[in-house]
């Protein structure tokens, strides 16, 4: 990957300080009606509390394909991927990522809107070896898949 020499700062792309509200206002209201932040779920400090805040303990579903590394080289960045087999679990509107032994297990919530596939890839902090949860919300309720990820502390220890 080469960069041209002699390029001025002005030549590079703009940092856009976009106004977030504009993007929100453009979307049909019916799709936005339910997307308020589930603050209680994000504030819960254990899995039971997180599920209680969401209103339901999910049941396991083979339709959730949850990819996490068996062993992470460092807990600061753990890549995860959630896919849904829609023939087994149709109508997924939301996906949640939870890390059992984090101070607050709820890491992220994703709402699929126009045309989005029930699919997400991201990277999360995992405080210590524990179960990670991929939770899918449909009109029929909450479903989940879980996997343990071991977290190591490498090298000379710092």
């Amino acid at each position, binding site marked *: *990957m*080469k*960069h041209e*020499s002699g*390029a*001025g*700062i002005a030549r*590079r792309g703009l940092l856009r300080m976009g106004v977030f509200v504009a993007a929100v206002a453009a979307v049909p209201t019916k799709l936005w009606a339910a997307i308020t932040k589930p603050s209680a779920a994000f504030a819960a400090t254990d899995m039971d509390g997180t599920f209680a805040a969401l209103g339901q303990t999910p049941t396991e579903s083979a339709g959730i394909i949850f*990819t996490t*590394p*068996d*062993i*992470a*080289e*460092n807990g*600061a*960045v*753990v*890549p995860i*991927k959630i896919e849904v087999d829609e023939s087994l679990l149709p109508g997924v509107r939301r996906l949640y990522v939870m890390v059992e032994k984090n101070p607050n297990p709820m890491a992220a919530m994703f709402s699929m809107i126009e045309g989005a596939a029930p699919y997400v890839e991201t990277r999360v902090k995992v405080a210590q070896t524990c179960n990670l949860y991929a939770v899918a919300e449909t009109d029929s309720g909450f479903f989940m898949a879980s996997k343990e990820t071991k977290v*190591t*502390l*490498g*090298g*000379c*220890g*710092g």
Partner: protein
Amino acid sequence: MDLMESIRNAWRLAALFGLLVAAAPSFGEDAGIFDEYRAMFGDDNPAVFVIDEGEEYWFEPQGPKNSSLEGCDLGLGPGVVEGAYARLPRYFADADMMMDVEARLIFCMRELQGRPSEEIQGYPYSMRGDLGTELEALVAWLADQSSGMPIAPGQEHAKEREFFTLGEQLFYYRAGPHDFSCATCHGQEGKRIRLQALPDLTSHEGAAGAYSAWPAYRISEGVVRTMGWRMRDCFRQQRFPLLGVGSDVTVALQTYLAVTAAGAPMMAPGLKR
């Protein structure tokens, strides 16, 4: 086979090797247990932001002279950045000194911008909570400008060869409360600390895997770390005295490492734990 011959042979191999290796983010030579973890990162390395920041620093007028670093000669002529990192450390006649990339940048900041060495020396590397330092960003960008190019530290000048010898001696020099040397951990094949494989830095393969992969975005810290930082942190772990940024000791050790790695392609900035 003398040193120059082995470097020339390494260059011939590099021509072939360079064609085969893509300049993709690399975790280094650890294999097996973390393969799945590392594969999941794909090509998405946050070092890209730090590279851009480094480029901005290079062109930004700073210091009492309100000048950019565009006139900085990294060994290939003033302002020539493509390929320069891969040819360091080397002897610079204008300073009459052996320099690594960090020593040279600090020199250029002083000479071109009028900024005292202490400005960078006092805070060269990120501390916890920092997003990155100017030095880390510049080194990341310069290493990217050498991505895919063969490691080729200067070895024609007598001082360059002297520093290779000095670096090798320092590699085996035992010191500190644990009586460690670099060789204690990095002097043989097949060693590890916990789950991290320890490269044998005395071999071409081991040195190449290590030297080509720094600077790197270090995920445990969220910042780009340089080879100079890596040496300094190794010194800290051995309970050695603080290793000076751009000091003769770090330049000599890097010279030893780079010469041993010579010919292998640079693959930085990579991704490391």
